[in-house]
Structure formats: structure tokens, C-alpha cells
């Protein structure tokens, strides 16, 4: 559906010869019907990446292929046609301040040549989907942030695109509103089969609705895959930091040092079905050890549970080794917790 091949984007800075590389050889494939998330800290190049997909930003080199069309090879007119099939929503909503909700959706429809007779029906339909039918004649400044984003989503959907790009669409919203917008995006994805490519710096967004994720740093994709795989087995420290942001359970170094003298501290990661196994209590029954839970948390990824449990195992070295071995055999991911640098 969306394919980026070796996309590089250079920004010339004002001083000649100084160029900033916002994207370095990015390769990315978004499949039809999925929700793909790109996460990274600010300045990682996520925004440039998503803007390359509809050519708001033209890549310096590489290819962007959307719906089988190579955007770089299109004429201006063809590019406009292609863009009408790619909806986009923004952090700042970007609505017309001088137009009411109805016109904010109707004007772009009119400008893209939708017949007048159809415009009214479309506006009503998509306002209904985003749940704002009663706000038709209200102006944007009388709406809350979440409502403005709903109007922006209705505006994007009214063109009936195959793809929706989301540029930090929930970053300006409070947690509750964020959740309602994410639910709306999920609904759109499921009901209309619209492929969604979103960028965010919030792990929560990825966790809640994404099927696959790419982690970006310094203009490069450093890790990508199914959300559950990337979460449960992060390969880079950046990804690890993102994952630990949803498990806010740092154990103080003093406690780790003290406990470590009497047995290992282990972190168990549970994915999917293994999340509901009573692993620790089995351990205590089978081996001569005592376990003491230090912290534990379970979160719901899009459709699978994902948990982390930190525990202290007390016992002789031989017994604790056997116990850890048993856990690994059971398909639980085990790692030893060390003092943080």
C-alpha cells in the first residue's frame, strides 16, 4: 500500500555546505488495512517521514510508492489526484477558523470537484461517524481540541481515501480525549478498511491501536516489526526506553543491591497467553525457593495482553538456577535486573 525505498531527505541549511539529514535511507512497507505506527523522540525525523508519503516534503532521493504509483514520477495534476486518495490529520487540526464545521468539510469537497448534490450527503455521513452531527453550524473556536480533531478526521474521511496519515494527531490532547480519538481511528480502520500510518512520540498510542511499529532515531529506522515482538524483545536502548515508559516501575538501586546478595532479581515478560499463567506460584511449589514480587504490571496491547513482573528469588544458587531454567522452558522471557548505570 505504502512503500518507501531508500528514502533520504536532506535539508539545506542557510550556511552553504551544511545540510541536515532528516531521513537516511529509510525503507518501510505499510500493508493494506493495517495501522502502522512510527515512534521516536522529537527531531527523529518522523514528521518528515510522514510528509514524504504525500509529497508535502519531496525526498532528496529514493522512491515513495503509494497504491502502486511512484509519486516522484507523477505530474502535478496526477500528484493532486493521488493526494486526494491520501487523507491527513495534524497535531494542530488545521481547520478554517472562518468557516463552520459544515463548511470546513464541504469546502474541500467542492474544491476537489465533488458534485454539489453529493456534498451534503457526505458531510452529514462523516459528521455522523465522528459523532458531531449536532455541531454542524458551530465555528472551530467554540469546539474543544478533541472535537476539532474529529472535524479534521471527518474532513479527511469525506474524500473517501484508502490511506490516512496522522501527524501527531493526539499529541495536543489530554489522555482521555486521546483515547477517544484513538478509538475513533481504530473504528475507521476496521469499518472502512482504511490503512493508517501514524507518527507519535507516545508509546500509549502504539500500544493501543497499532499492528506494527517502527522506531526512529536520527533519521533512521532502528527497529521495526509487530508491536508485540518489538515490545517484548527490544533490540536497542531507545526502544527499551519507550517500552519502559509504559511500565513505570523503576526499583531503586539501593534495594537492588541489597536484595541481589540473597538471590537474583528477575524480570519476567509475558506475551499473549503466557500472561495468564501463574508462573511464580508454580515456581514456589516445584522448587525450594521463595519468591517476592517487587513490581508487576500488565497492559493490553491492541488485542493481546502484555505483562512484566519483577521478582526476587531467594534460595540456594542451584535451586534458583533450576527455577529460572524452568521458567524459560515454559516460554516466559526472563532477564536479570541489574543496578541501573
Amino acid at each position: 500500500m505504502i512503500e518507501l525505498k531508500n528514502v533520504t531527505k536532506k535539508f539545506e541549511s542557510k550556511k552553504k555546505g551544511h545540510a541536515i539529514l532528516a531521513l537516511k535511507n529509510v525503507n518501510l512497507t505499510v500493508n493494506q488495512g493495517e495501522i502502522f505506527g512510527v515512534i521516536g523522540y522529537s527531531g527523529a525525523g518522523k514528521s518528515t517521514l510522514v510528509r514524504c508519503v504525500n509529497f508535502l516534503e519531496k525526498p532528496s532521493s529514493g522512491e515513495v510508492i503509494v497504491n502502486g504509483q511512484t509519486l516522484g514520477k507523477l505530474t502535478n495534476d496526477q500528484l493532486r489526484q493521488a493526494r486526494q486518495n491520501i487523507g491527513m490529520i495534524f497535531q494542530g487540526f488545521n481547520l478554517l477558523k472562518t468557516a463552520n464545521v459544515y463548511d470546513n468539510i464541504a469546502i474541500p469537497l467542492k474544491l476537489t470537484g465533488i458534485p454539489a448534490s453529493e456534498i451534503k450527503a457526505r458531510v452529514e455521513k462523516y459528521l455522523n461517524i465522528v459523532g458531531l452531527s449536532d455541531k454542524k453550524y458551530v465555528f472551530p473556536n467554540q469546539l474543544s481540541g478533541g472535537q476539532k480533531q474529529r472535524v479534521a478526521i471527518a474532513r479527511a474521511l469525506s474524500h473517501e481515501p484508502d490511506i490516512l496519515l496522522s501527524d501527531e494527531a493526539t499529541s495536543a490532547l489530554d489522555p482521555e480525549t486521546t483515547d477517544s480519538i484513538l478509538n475513533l481511528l481504530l473504528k475507521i480502520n476496521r469499518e472502512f478498511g482504511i490503512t493508517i500510518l501514524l507518527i507519535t512520540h507516545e508509546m500509549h498510542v502504539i500500544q493501543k491501536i497499532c499492528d506494527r511499529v517502527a522506531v526512529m532515531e536520527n533519521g533512521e529506522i532502528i527497529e521495526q516489526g509487530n508491536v508485540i515482538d518489538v515490545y517484548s524483545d527490544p533490540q536497542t536502548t531507545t526502544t527499551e526506553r519507550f517500552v519502559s515508559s509504559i511500565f513505570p516501575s523503576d526499583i531503586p538501586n539501593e534495594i537492588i543491591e541489597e536484595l541481589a546478595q540473597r538471590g537474583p532479581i528477575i524480570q519476567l515478560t509475558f506475551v499473549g497467553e503466557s500472561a495468564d499463567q501463574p508462573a511464580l506460584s508454580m515456581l514456589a511449589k516445584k522448587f525450594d525457593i521463595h519468591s517476592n514480587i517487587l513490581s508487576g504490571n500488565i497492559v493490553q496491547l491492541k488485542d493481546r495482553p502484555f505483562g512484566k513482573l519483577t521478582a526476587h528469588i531467594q534460595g540456594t544458587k542451584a535451586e534458583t538456577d533450576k527455577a529460572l531454567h524452568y521458567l524459560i522452558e515454559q516460554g516466559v522471557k526472563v532477564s536479570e535486573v541489574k543496578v541501573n548505570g
Partner: protein
Amino acid sequence: MANFFDQIDRWGGLIWQATIETFQMVSISLIISIIIGLPLGILLVITRPNKSYNNKFIYQSLNIVINIIRSIPFIILLFTLLPFTRFIVGTSMGVRGVILPLVVFTAPYIARLMESALLEVDRGVLEAYEAMGIKTRDIIWHVMVREARPSIILGITIAVIGLIGATAMAGLVGAGGLGDVAYRFGHLRYEPEVMYVTIIILIIIIQAIQSIGNVLASRAKKD
């Protein structure tokens, strides 16, 4: 009191006639100036570096020409343009004769005011429309100009007031109008009452225009 009515009898017709002339000069030259100034303002915005029709040559030359015209005081512009006006319009007298210099004076001013109004429009909105595959000329008209309307109205209000000031000077080349009456009767013929009356009329007109401008701008804002 009798004196007051005597005065009205004596000067009323003249001042009324002058007010009409001022309105004629202002409205005709305003309309032409907007027709010229608004597109120039748009051109200044879109040919700017990093904008949609980035064109250094057009942007810079337009900038220089506008700055040159704007540096000439109207009274001097008026006399400088006399032969040119006569050549184009056929006369340099009366309301007809003064429209051209008024337009030359006001259009660049309006272009600058439109430029600053249009630059205020949120870049993100323009981008959102670009992302929807909408033609640039539609974006300029239906998004940029539309969103800038409140500032455009305030800008035009400022231009109208400047224009009224300029029409007073146009009296010097025989264009008529309130300024002409005030100057000829008040200054040359020592009839200060006439001057005071024209001043009061001008104050009322300016107050009214500014208030109307403010109201229209805040309506367009939809806040």
C-alpha cells in the same frame, strides 16, 4: 442661532458638494486600488522564498518598486504624475484627474497591507489543503484570502483613512472635495468657520469608517 442657519444657507450646498466629491474620489480610487493591490499582495506572499511560487526576481523587483512609490510623499507624487495623468486620462483636473495619482499612491500601500494580512494565515491550514490535493490557486483564494479576511478588512480601513487624507491634498490640483473647500475658503479667504465645519465632517467620517471596519472585521473573525 440665526447666524448658524445663515451659515448653512451660505455654505451648506458647497460643503455638501465637496463631501460628495470626496466620497467619489475615495470610493473610485479605493476600488481600483484594491483590484491592483490585493493581487500584488498575494504575489508578494507567494513569490517569497520558501513559498509555493518562490520567485526571487518577481519578489525582489516588486518589493523595490513598491518601496520606491511608497517613499514619495503624495503631494510630490501628485505633481510628478501631472503630465502622465493628462496623457492617460486626458485631464488632470477635477475628480477624474486625480484618480490616477490616488491609485498610484494607494495601490502599493494596499499591497503591503494585504501582504501582512496574508502572512498571518496559519501555514498548517494551507498545508492541509495542499495535502488534500487542492489546486494552488484555489488554496490562495478559498483558504489564504478567506482566512485573512478580518485582517484584510482592517487593512482596507487603514487604507481608506489614508486615502481620505490624500484626497485633501488633491484639492491643490483642482480636484475639489472637502480638503479643497477647507483650504480655499478657510485658508485663502479667511473664513475659519468653513474650515472648522470641514474638519468636524472629516472627524465624523473617519470615526464612522474605523468603527464600521472594526465591526466588519470582528464579524469576519467568527470569534
